[in-house]
C-alpha cells in the first residue's frame, strides 16, 4: 500500500470510526469512570472516587435477586425460542423449496424488523384481563375461564419470545441451509432413520447457528426493561428496570453505571463462552 493509498483509506475510515468513538466508545468509558464516583461531577457538586457503588450493587440482596430473576427470565425466553425456532428453521431450510420458501422466510423475519415497542403493546391488548384472548377462549370453551395472563411472568415470556424468536430462526436457518444434502443421503442409504439422522447429524451441524441465535436472544433479554414494564406490571421489576430507575427516576447515576457494568460483565462472559460457536456460525 503506497502512502497516497494509505492516506485515502484513512480519510475514508476516519469519519465512521470517529463517530463510533464519540457515540459509543467514549460514553462507555465515561460510564466506567462514573461508576467509581460518589456523585455526578457536574457543576459545583462534590465528588470523590469510591468502590461503594460496586459494593452496594454486589451486596444488596434485592439487586442480587433482581439479577438472578433477569437471568432466569432470559434463560426461559431462550429455551422457548430454541424449542419453537429450530423446527421452524428446519422446515424452511430443508423441506420447503423455491418461491414459497422465500416468501415464508421473509414473513418470519419481517416482524423482527418492525417496531419492538409496538409489538409488545399489541400483546398487551391481546392478554389484558377481559381482553381478546380471554374472550376467544371463553367463546370456545363452555365453562367460564379467567386467564388473566396480563401482568405476569408468563406475559413477559410470551412478549419476549415474540420479540426475539426470529433471531433463532434466522441463524439456525443459515447453518441448516449449509448442510450438504449428500451427507444426509449417505446416512439414509446406510439405513439411518430420521430421528437418528436428526440427532447424530443435523443437530450437531446446526449447533453453531443455534448457539449464535441463543446468545443473540439471551443478551438483550437480560437487559430488557420495556417489555417487563409493559407486560409484567408489578411483577415486572427486573435488573433492567432497576438500572432504568437509577437514570430516569432516582437519578443515582453512579450506582446505575455500576449496575450497568455488572450487567455488561455478565454479557461479556456469555459472549466469551459462546465465541467459538459464534465464530463458526459467521464463517
Amino acid at each position: 500500500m503506497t502512502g497516497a493509498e494509505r492516506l485515502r483509506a484513512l480519510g475514508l475510515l476516519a469519519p465512521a470510526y470517529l463517530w463510533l468513538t464519540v457515540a459509543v466508545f467514549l460514553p462507555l468509558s465515561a460510564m466506567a469512570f462514573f461508576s467509581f464516583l460518589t456523585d455526578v461531577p457536574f457543576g459545583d457538586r462534590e465528588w470523590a472516587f469510591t468502590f461503594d457503588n460496586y459494593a452496594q450493587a454486589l451486596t444488596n440482596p434485592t439487586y442480587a435477586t433482581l439479577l438472578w430473576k433477569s437471568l432466569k427470565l432470559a434463560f426461559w425466553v431462550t429455551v422457548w425460542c430454541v424449542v419453537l425456532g429450530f423446527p421452524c428453521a428446519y422446515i424452511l431450510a430443508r423441506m420447503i423449496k423455491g418461491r414459497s420458501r422465500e416468501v415464508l422466510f421473509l414473513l418470519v423475519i419481517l416482524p423482527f424488523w418492525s417496531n419492538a415497542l409496538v409489538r409488545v403493546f399489541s400483546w398487551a391488548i391481546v392478554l389484558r384481563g377481559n381482553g381478546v384472548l380471554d374472550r376467544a377462549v371463553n367463546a370456545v370453551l363452555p365453562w367460564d375461564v379467567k386467564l388473566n395472563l396480563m401482568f405476569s411472568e408468563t406475559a413477559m415470556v410470551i412478549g419476549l419470545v415474540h420479540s426475539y424468536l426470529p433471531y433463532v430462526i434466522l441463524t439456525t436457518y443459515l447453518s441448516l441451509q449449509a448442510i450438504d444434502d449428500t451427507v444426509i443421503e449417505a446416512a439414509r442409504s446406510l439405513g439411518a432413520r430420521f430421528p437418528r439422522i436428526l440427532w447424530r447429524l443435523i443437530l450437531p451441524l446446526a449447533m453453531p447457528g443455534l448457539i449464535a441465535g441463543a446468545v443473540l436472544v439471551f443478551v438483550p433479554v437480560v437487559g430488557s426493561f420495556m417489555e417487563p414494564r409493559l407486560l409484567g406490571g408489578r411483577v415486572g421489576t427486573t435488573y433492567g428496570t432497576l438500572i432504568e430507575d437509577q437514570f430516569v427516576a432516582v437519578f443515582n447515576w453512579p450506582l446505575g453505571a455500576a449496575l450497568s457494568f455488572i450487567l455488561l460483565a455478565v454479557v461479556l462472559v456469555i459472549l466469551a463462552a459462546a465465541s467459538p460457536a459464534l465464530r463458526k456460525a459467521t464463517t
Partner: protein
Amino acid sequence: MIRHAFARAYLGLILIFLYAPIAVMAVMSLNASEFYALPFRFSTEWYERLFTNDEILAAAWRSVWIAVVVAIIATALGTMATLALWRHDFPGKRILQALLFPPIAVPWLITGTAMLIFFFGVGIGRGTPAVIIGHVALALPYVIVTVFARMQSFDRALEEAARSLGARPLTVARKVILPHAAPGIIAGALFAFAVSFDQFVVSYFLAEPGDSTLPVLIYSAIRKGFTPEINAVSTIIILISMAVMVLAARYAKFGGTR
C-alpha cells in the same frame, strides 16, 4: 405426504403467533368502542382523532425526519468506511472490523445510559441532536455489513480494466465501484432508516420530554393507560416499518444472487 402437511401446519402456527397480536391491534384500531368491546363496530374515529392530535403528529414528524437524517449520515459514513475496508489490506483491519460489534452486541440499555452520561458530561445534553448522534452509531454497523456483503460479488478485473484504460482512482470509484455497490447502499440506507425509526431504548434515554420521538411518546402514553389512538398510530407505524423492510429485503438480495 403426512410429514409435509405437519410441517406446513407448524409453520402456520408460528406465523399466527407472530402476526395475530398485530392483526388484533390493527382490527381494534378500527373498532368504535374505546374499551375494545365486542361486537366489532367499524369506525375510523381513532384515525380521525389521531390526525388532530398535535402532540402525536409532531412526534411522528420528528421520528420520520430524524430517521431520514440518520439514514443519510450513516449511509455516507458507512459506505466510505466499507470501501476502505473492502479495498485495502492494512494492519489493524481486523480490529476495526471487530469494533463494529459493540454497538450491536452491547444491550441498548447500557449503550443508551452510557450515551446519556457522556452527552451530559460534554454539554450536548438530551434532545434531538443527541438522539441523532446515538442512532447513527447504532445504524453504522448495519450499513457497513450490508454494503460489504454486496461488494463481495465485485469482479476486481473490472477495476483493473478501467485503470488500464486510464481512469483516475476517483473516476473508477464513481463509474465502476459505486454503481456496483448501489443496491447494497440502498438496502443499507433502508436498514439505517428502520434502526432509527423503530429505536425505542436509546431514544428513551436521550430524547427530551416534550420533544420526543414517536416510540417514546407511545411508551409514556401506554404507561398512563391505553387509548385507541395509540392503537391507530401503532398500526400505522408497523405498516411503515414492514413496508421499508420488504423494500430493503428486495434490494439486499442484490438482483438474482440466489
